């Protein structure tokens, strides 16, 4: 049998690096595609012996794009470890920082990373499939607005956290810095501008994507559809929550399958290993690993915006809720299984993050002086959970009586999507590559299958003919390259 290989190396905007190996049969149809993560650093092991209170800063180095997510998950784990609760001001400052972070990080993806695929178009010339093309489409003023808005939001995070990349504010039972009332007016203005910005972004998305029948067809196409379970954090009213709450999972038909506190995550979350990737694949443990498959018999779940909107009954803020209702009405009801709808769900979440920011800066307790409760309990085990922009994030610490880590277990958001990404890449490769033909447009459309999830290393692209470097090499069975496509 003649086997041909197409290797895409590297893919980018992932935790570290990634690559895809595609194998064709002798008719040039895709037999198998492997979505591979080629890296591991070992945080859980080298955390052993570390003081638990250092973990929010140590684990934030898992990702420099979403350090605040790890920082906050770690801080919540410390709350549980020391059985201590933050006073209201401390909680509100944490939530303010966290929603600010969600807003700026989602904006990065919408305008600069994944957004160009839609705002400019999946088959647009490659030199325009980046923020330059986005700016041409939406105007220079908007471009400046995006850069400036992100910068102001990140300045808020620096205010409380010292640095925005790897902030320091998290302590068990509170935060390290309060809000000086003199600085409040500036933040109130920022929150107002943030809500306007989120609304504007939603409008941009509607105008450019939803009014384009080609795009709607793409979003709803079978190539990018997977019917899996969906997981997300919800508050006591089953509304989307980023910072606190219980984990809720719905099945592919949208029915609640489970709802549990972070402390019970081991009852539900399993990690599966494959020999062709360093990343592990999350699935629902009680159902057992059923392979890379979807449909009613699957045990694969998904996380991040698409999943969160499916798992919850509503958004937690009014404008976002309106947007969500429109989203489900347009896409045929809940749950939505279209991977590319992640882009839309993400914008709706921006709106909630901004509205929540505004609620918090207008809360009189936000300038309170009591920002932390000093713990007194002897630590043993602590488990914390937050919704990172890219999905549900679990931090689990076990310590000795001095609070030094004996064991740490981390389930990092993107792992909740790694099975679905692997399926998506293979399905799109099979759907798009025929008779051995794989041109530039096809390559980009395979990339779109994982890019919609905003995998954890979504890093900046700016002003540059920004698409990922791709080499597609088609080899015959002797390994000799017969064709090479570059872009």
């Amino acid at each position, binding site marked *: 049998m003649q086997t041909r290989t197409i*290797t895409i*190396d590297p893919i980018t905007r992932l935790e570290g690096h990634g*690559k895809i190996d595609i194998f064709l049969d002798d008719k040039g149809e895709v037999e198998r595609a492997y979505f591979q993560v080629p890296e591991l650093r070992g945080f859980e092991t080298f955390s052993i*012996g570390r003081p638990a209170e250092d973990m929010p800063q140590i684990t934030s180095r898992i990702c420099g794009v979403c350090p605040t997510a790890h920082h906050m998950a770690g801080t919540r784990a410390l709350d549980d470890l020391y059985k201590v609760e933050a006073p209201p001001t401390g909680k509100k400052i944490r939530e303010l920082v966290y929603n600010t972070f969600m807003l700026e990080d989602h904006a990065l993806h919408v305008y600069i990373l994944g957004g160009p695929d839609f705002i400019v178009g999946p088959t647009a010339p490659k030199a325009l499939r980046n923020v330059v093309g986005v700016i041409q489409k939406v105007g220079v003023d908007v471009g400046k607005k995006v850069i400036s808005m992100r910068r102001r939001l990140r300045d808020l995070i620096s205010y409380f956290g010292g640095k925005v990349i790897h902030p320091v504010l998290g302590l068990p039972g509170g935060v390290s810095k309060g809000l000086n009332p003199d600085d409040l007016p500036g933040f109130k203005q920022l929150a107002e501008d943030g809500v306007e910005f989120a609304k504007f972004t939603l409008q941009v998305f509607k105008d450019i994507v939803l009014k384009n029948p080609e795009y709607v067809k793409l979003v709803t196409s079978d190539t990018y559809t997977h019917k899996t379970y969906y997981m997300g954090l919800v508050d006591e009213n089953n509304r989307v929550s980023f910072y606190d709450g219980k984990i809720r999972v719905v099945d592919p038909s949208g029915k609640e399958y489970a709802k549990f506190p972070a402390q019970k995550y081991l009852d539900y979350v399993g990690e599966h290993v494959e020999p062709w990737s360093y990343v592990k694949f999350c699935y629902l443990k009680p159902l057992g690993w059923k392979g890379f498959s979807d449909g009613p018999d699957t045990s694969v779940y998904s996380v991040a915006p698409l999943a969160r909107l499916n798992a919850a009954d509503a958004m937690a803020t009014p404008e976002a809720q309106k947007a969500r209702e429109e989203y489900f009405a347009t896409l045929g009801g809940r749950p939505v299984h279209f991977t590319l709808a992640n882009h839309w769900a993400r914008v709706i979440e921006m709106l909630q993050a901004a509205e929540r920011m505004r609620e918090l800066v207008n809360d009189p307790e936000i300038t309170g002086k009591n920002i932390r409760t000093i713990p007194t309990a002897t630590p043993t085990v602590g488990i914390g959970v937050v919704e990172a922009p890219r999905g549900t994030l679990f931090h689990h610490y076990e310590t000795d009586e001095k609070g030094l880590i004996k064991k740490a277990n981390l389930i990092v958001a993107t792992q909740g999507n790694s099975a679905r990404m692997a399926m998506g890449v293979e399905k799109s490769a099979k759907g798009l590559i025929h008779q051995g033909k794989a041109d530039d447009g096809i390559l980009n459309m395979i990339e779109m299958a994982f890019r919609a999830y905003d995998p954890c290393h979504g890093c900046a692209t700016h002003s540059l003919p920004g698409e990922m470097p791709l*080499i597609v090499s088609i080899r015959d069975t002797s390994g000799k*390259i*017969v*064709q*090479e*496509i570059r872009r």
Partner: protein
Amino acid sequence: MSSPTTQPSNGKPRADWEPRIVAFFCNWCTYTAADLAGVSRMKHASNVRIIRVMCSGRVDPQFVLEAFAKGADGVLIGGCHFGDCHYSEGNYKAARRIRMLRRVLADMGIEADRFRLEWISASEGEKVKLVINDMAEKVKALGPLGMPGQFKDFDQEMEHLEAEAGVKEVAHAG
């Protein structure tokens, strides 16, 4: 392991291997005692290279770490008894620093017997002899630490340059 101190076949130290111990002796007490031991013709193991410092408080932990990193199998520090320091405070500082250094060495896998701090007064020549002999014996039993050799070993993993992943250079199509 490929260091010259080991036999090629089984990694055990050669029978004639002798540990190399670096000693930092304070001028006023321990170094004087070592002199005394020499003048008194006390025989002690020859494994020790003595470095004279003016005070045990002069011993920067970096000296100890660098000695190990450069190939020492053991490091010995000798200073004055508490209360006898020529500079009053120096040996207290040494005591505190060395305690912390011990913990770091332990956490980094260097056996406790390789690192020793002794208070030896100027008249205690006999003690110098006993300490040196005892330490040489203990370090010999532990075998070589051989840090330079260990890192040469580790660096073998960098010798292959063939690309396992990624695409090799090719001519353009057509």
